[in-house]
């Protein structure tokens, strides 16, 4: 044991270094704030608004006129908003239930929607269940409510007071009922006793879905990276680079809401990062714990991306072609944000990119 005295000073040094109270990071508070205040509220709103949408489409079909159509269109927009806000946190039940494309498959395929009306004499919930995703969901409802002309009278003309108009209305109502049910199931899976919200909030503390804190961080960051990649590739790159008609490739093109969708996507992401309010724990808490400088850069890049989205004041349909530079700037800012998350945030938080668990050394 004559080696012991030689190692004693090292031990003392280590003990001295550890004498101060260590800095604590309350990851549980982050997950609780994100779950309770950021992730679930848009899903609650989506469920409520989808019930409103069902009521509005039933009212429209009960009395087809400008006012009821306006109300139904406004209700569609109000339903779309929380859905867009929720996309940056599109993990958990939305994947497990496999309902994402049933809610939001786009670009809508108008031919498939019209074919549904040609091929069916009556529309029942079973009919909707059997339809492919390109003929249902929010984009199909949008097509029926807004048509393609941005003209209310033209939309009303697609609902004539005859069996064809009644079938179209029945289709519209059945689609909205399907969305209402899906939104309800989605929310229930988060909120039920022992549901995903509880699993997420107890990550690393008894959760079976997220046995470690890192599992919850991994799913959050991977979902954000996937979401931003989707936004850049599908919502911006495709319409910007197509040799065909870019409008055909826009999200929510019938209501001219593509820019609003983008702004809501970014707002949802910003809420995840900030915790949804000033001085609240959020993803920024975890990043700042590792690197305050990186936290500042991520926050600044989110602001830059949102500013670029706000700079597109009119419909995205008009900005592409008339103001390509602004759309390109938006694309580049969102891509820079995606890259920041995919490289530096992933590195700082020790995230395992997607589900590869091969060893390293």
């Amino acid at each position, binding site marked *: 044991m004559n080696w012991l005295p030689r190692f004693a000073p090292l031990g003392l040094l280590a003990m001295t270094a550890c004498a101060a109270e260590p800095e604590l990071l309350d990851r549980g508070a982050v997950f609780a704030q994100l779950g309770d205040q950021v992730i679930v509220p848009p899903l609650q709103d989506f469920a409520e608004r989808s019930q409103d949408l069902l009521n509005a489409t039933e009212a429209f079909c009960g009395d087809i006129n400008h006012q009821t159509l306006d109300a139904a269109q406004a209700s569609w927009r109000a339903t779309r908003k929380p859905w867009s806000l929720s996309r940056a946190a599109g993990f958990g039940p939305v994947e497990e239930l496999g309902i994402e494309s049933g809610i939001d498959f786009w670009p809508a395929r108008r031919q498939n929607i019209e074919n549904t009306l040609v091929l069916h004499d009556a529309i029942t919930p079973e009919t909707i269940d059997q339809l492919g995703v390109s003929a249902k969901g929010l984009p199909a409802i949008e097509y029926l409510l807004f048509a393609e002309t941005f003209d209310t009278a033209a939309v009303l003309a697609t609902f004539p007071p005859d069996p064809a108009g009644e079938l179209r209305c029945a289709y519209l109502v059945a689609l909205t009922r399907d969305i209402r049910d899906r939104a309800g199931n989605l929310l229930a899976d988060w909120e039920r006793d022992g549901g995903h919200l509880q699993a997420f909030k107890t990550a690393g503390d008894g959760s079976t879905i997220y046995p470690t804190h890192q599992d919850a961080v991994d799913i959050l960051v991977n979902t954000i990276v996937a979401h931003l990649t989707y936004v850049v590739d599908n919502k911006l790159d495709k319409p910007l680079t197509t040799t065909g008609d870019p409008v055909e490739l826009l999200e929510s093109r019938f209501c001219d809401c593509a820019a609003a969708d983008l702004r809501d996507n970014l707002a949802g992401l910003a809420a995840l990062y900030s915790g949804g309010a000033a001085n609240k724990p959020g993803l920024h808490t975890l990043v700042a714990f590792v690197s305050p400088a990186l936290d500042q850069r991520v926050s600044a890049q989110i602001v830059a991306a949102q500013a670029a989205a706000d700079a597109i004041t009119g419909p995205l349909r008009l900005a592409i072609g008339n103001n390509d530079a602004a759309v390109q700037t938006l694309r580049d800012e969102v891509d820079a944000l995606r890259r920041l998350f995919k490289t530096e945030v992933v590195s700082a938080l020790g995230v395992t990119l997607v589900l590869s668990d091969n060893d*390293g*050394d």
Partner: protein
Amino acid sequence: MLPAPAKGPSRRVSIASLVAFRILFGLTMLVSTVRFVARGWVDSLYLEPTYHFTYWGFSWVQPWPAFWMYMHFILLGVCALCICIGFYYRLAAAVFFLSFTYIELLDQATYLNHYYLVSLLSMLAIFLPLHANASLDAKRRPSLRRTHVPALYLWVIRGQVALVYLFAGAAKLQRDWLVEANPLAIWLKAHTGLAWVGAWLGRPEVARAMSVGGAVFDLAIVFLLLWRRTQIPALLALCGFHTITGLLFPIGVFPWLMTACALILLPPTWPQGLLERVGLWWSTTHPNTHASAPSRVCMLAFSVYATIQVALPLRHHLYPGDVAWTEEGGRFAWRVMLTEKVGDAVFRVHNPATGATWRVRPEAYLTPLQAKEMCVQPDMLLAFARFLGAREAMPVEVYVDAFVSLNGRPATRLVDPTVNLMKQHEAFAPKTWLLPAPH
């Protein structure tokens, strides 16, 4: 009259530690193979990818069909068991070496330093009489039995193991590791949620102490295990170090392999008592005491091998720039757990005839692991760019927007985005299309 005691490489040493090495190496490989199959990595790493990053000159090495890939791994496991118990040992070692190396040559994305070490050790094992005691072979053929072997055989394995630690330690003697305590500081902060110790792991002084301690450990452990007066604390440090790294980081069987290997640095008789007590076909009889000394050819071969093993990890000095950034000379160099690198790459394919340019995300063609590795490895970026170009019917230009974050630094361009990678070829020459490392 007895011959004068031999000196140097011909000096006789107990075979006990070499036998223990054989048993532990075979056992670790058996566990590793079973674990690899059980985790579904045969599918995810070799069968699912539609494209493989083969090594230069080894593009002919391709995965077998699924059934035969699994047969291949079963063969690996059987060979590992045969090495462990010393049954048809040399054949088993040869087949294991070829089979294991074949697997490793399938895809650069799966390169790991300890897999490379396994290939080297299994190759050396073919030529060393590690089955000359405590083996089924020696039990069946008493003429094989030895209680002592030339010291050269012991020092070949010792030398290989020592090179791993020493080059791993030398690679840590740089600013990021010693001053910034990165990447350990980054990695440890991911573990601050652990009970008991978690709160301390986020502290910079702990990361710094562990960084310095890690470098000192790597540089000193070989000598501390060899020097009799420090063997016991060194053994404790060895077990402690590899246990801690094994618990904190996802490095698979690496800690257990290195612990098993490092035991070869202890006195050659260390397991003799254990082997005698346990049995394991250990024989104290020595039918061929005056076994021949290593031949000149044997000595020359091991000398060439040693020279190559010293030169390979040093070759990165022939390239400009920081090897941590360029990766030129980074493989086969024992740069173990040295960097935290995360990258992002988007390829731009341009058809000069039509003027069309389109972006390609590698994730569309690669598995997550392949994409992750490729984004930070220039030779893999080049290979994939050329793969994309070759897919097109008409000649195209391929560029890449590749950004890498090294040890927590802001993500910076790795490749000159104006260079058409279809005009570049993989070679041993420095890659002039790489951009400088960030400061």
